[in-house]
């Protein structure tokens, strides 16, 4: 449940910012945003790739340009295509039931998990999650697209925050709580490394970094204000990366997520097999040390991010093997 809701939260934040970008960002940046999301989720977009013709890369929305009537007509079609593509992509990431990472699937599976262990969570948590799930059942992409997609994603993000707040305020701090937190923060580390890798790949392909892409990244992690306070207004990708990965005070940094993973693992205690429990603790410790001690001096950040994602995945499997599938 913790994993699904963390994934839903992450996706909602990315989609909210992407929906905002549709209002006034250039076509190239919009497609770059979609590519980053799909790459970070390791999913093929419906209809194939999202590469644009070179001439379209820097195209701005038609309403910001003064053009000849024929030129305007051409770009209007291009914008309409962009919006139509975006609708399809947003629908795929929001309501597509066959997409295991869609918002709908995250809520359906998160709620199904909650249903199966309803007696282990608080009644308030169940109700909060169930109400959001029922809300999602009643709406379609077209409804939110015609009204305000960013409004919908903002509301959904608030619903998730409410759920997390309700969980924090009402759930008994037994092992159920610790396992939920463990799953949630392992997922957070994985999603963060996936998204940072996708952004680095995007930079590599366009051979230059886009300041707005990196700003968006900061906003996904609720880190824009912290960045400005600690690094100033200039957006430097290395500093953004350092902040998001290693900052001990940023709530959504990878370092804090992995510290929580270690703490929760300690709180769960020794499983039936002490040696396997130790192995899980060592792996969690190694993840922490990668972020805390290896990251600052590493010349190959992408390689380190791949390793973090891989070890996080292994840790998840190990926790299952130690505590549940023995």
């Amino acid at each position, binding site marked *: 449940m913790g994993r699904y809701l963390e994934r839903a939260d992450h996706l909602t934040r990315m989609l909210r910012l992407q929906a905002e970008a549709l209002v006034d960002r250039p076509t190239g940046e919009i497609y770059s945003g979609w590519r980053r999301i799909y790459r970070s989720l390791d999913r093929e977009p419906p209809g194939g790739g999202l590469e644009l013709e070179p001439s379209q890369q820097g195209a701005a929305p038609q309403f910001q340009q003064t053009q000849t009537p024929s030129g305007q007509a051409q770009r209007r079609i291009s914008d309409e295509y962009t919006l139509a593509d975006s609708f399809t992509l947003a629908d795929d990431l929001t309501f597509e039931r066959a997409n295991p990472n869609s918002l709908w699937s995250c809520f359906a599976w998160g709620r199904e998990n909650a*249903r199966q262990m309803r007696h282990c969570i608080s009644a308030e948590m169940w109700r909060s999650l169930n109400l959001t799930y*029922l809300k999602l059942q009643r709406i379609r992409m077209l409804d939110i697209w015609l009204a305000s997609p960013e409004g919908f994603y903002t509301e959904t993000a608030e619903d998730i925050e409410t759920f997390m707040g309700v969980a924090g305020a009402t759930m008994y701090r037994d092992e159920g709580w610790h*396992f939920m937190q463990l799953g949630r923060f392992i997922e957070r580390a994985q999603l963060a490394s996936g998204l940072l890798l996708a952004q680095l790949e995007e930079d590599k392909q366009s051979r230059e970094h886009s300041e707005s892409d990196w700003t968006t990244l900061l906003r996904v992690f609720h880190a824009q204000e912290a960045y400005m306070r600690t690094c100033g207004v200039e957006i430097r990708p290395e500093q953004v990366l350092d902040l998001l990965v290693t900052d001990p005070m940023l709530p959504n940094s990878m370092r804090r997520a992995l510290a929580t993973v270690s703490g929760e693992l300690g709180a769960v205690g020794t499983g039936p097999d002490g040696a396997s429990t130790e192995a899980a603790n060592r792996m969690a410790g190694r993840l922490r040390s990668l972020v805390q001690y290896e990251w600052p001096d590493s010349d190959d950040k992408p390689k380190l991010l791949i390793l973090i994602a891989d070890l996080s995945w292994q840790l998840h499997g190990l926790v299952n093997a130690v505590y549940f599938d023995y």
Partner: protein
Amino acid sequence: MTTADRFGNYSIDADIFDEMFHADGATRDDWKGLQQTLTDLSTEELNAIQERVTRSFSNEGITFTVYGDDEADERIIPIDCVPRLLVEAEWRELESGLTQRLKALNLFLQDVYGESRVTKDGVIPQDMVRGCPQYRLEMRGFTPPQGTWVAICGTDVVRTNDGFRVLEDNLRVPSGVSYMIANRKAVKASLRRLYRASRVLEVENYGRLLLDTLRELAPGGQTNPTIALLTPGVYNSAFYEHMFLAGELGAELVEGRDLVVDDGFVCMRTTTGLRRVDVIYRRVDDDFIDPTVFRPDSVLGVPGLMDAYLRGNVALANAPGTGVADDKSVYAYVPDLIRYYLGEEPLLQNVETYLCRRPQELEYTLDNLDRLVVKKVGESGGYGMLVGPHATPAERAEYAEQVRANPADFIAQPTLALSRSPCLIDGNFEPRHVDLRPFILHGKTTRIVPGAFCRVALKRGSLVVNSSQGGGGKDVWVLEE
């Protein structure tokens, strides 16, 4: 719209007992408060109450799931917001009858798996007992803790102009108790003032009584045993109830794969290793609880569970083999069993039942198929049944052939005029047929919460209260005197 208008379509039939009205149309005294409340509410307010009750079920996720080929369909049982009222004297009458009945049935089970005096004395045919598919040879010679074979029972009761009648005893894994409590929660929150003024007896302590009952079954008389509720799993249609009851009991909810038998004791896998379980409230049918003893293809059960049980290392509620006592043929003998074991006259009557294994009753059944309900012994849930008055001549003829071929497999009962109670239908009150399933707990003593799950046939004229065929539910208020 006034109440009189809203009851404009309310028909009263002297042949059918109406819970709210006398045959002459006068309101029964104990229903007058409810009637007054309904008078004071506008149509909009009534509809809002009904909407609130319905919504509370979907918001709380009190659902059952029907699994189709492609996807799962999650449904709620429609709950009518108008409660069914019973007065305490009526309830006490029911309570005494139900207690007496379950006591006799537990003695019967102890006897048929022990000395079998009852068959030797000719009270009930031996072949009927031993030939019953639910008779478990594995249980012969065994005595469960407290002699309690059936710890949890849900008895279906109907009311006619002749009073209450037991329609069926459910002695294996009866369900529906979570709806009794959920209905209460939803309806009392919507009819707050009336509820307070009516002095309704409490049902919400069912979980506590169930816990006390299960504790009394613990091996070695432990006072604080570890209790687990064994569910067939999350895809079972009653999973909500299993989860709800585990929560009420403070027990672990487990599936078969969560349990292992270790050195003759049942243990559950926990994150810190194996932990011994003393009492299992199992919601898995006999056939599936232990693949080494019953169905070998079962993946829902626990290999070795029966061995641990028969050694007395774990208690099961209910005990395996109780199905022989709620068999449809044995049902006809329950009044005789009460007389035999308790030396008392039955306080609650059966529905008149014809056993087709008896030549005269077979003849009567075949001659009156158009007026009778014929049921196949060993089937449940309305399967294998012929409702004579609603069947075509061809259907009756075909069914008659089956009955003639194996008369002992069939029983017949008259079509019952189930009592009716008012329901809110499209803004008006209309009578609908209802039944009643109270839940009886039996350990060292018998415990019954004053309430029941009331099923209601929401389709006009229908007698079928089953939720898969348009049935719904109602809260039952037992009014303190």
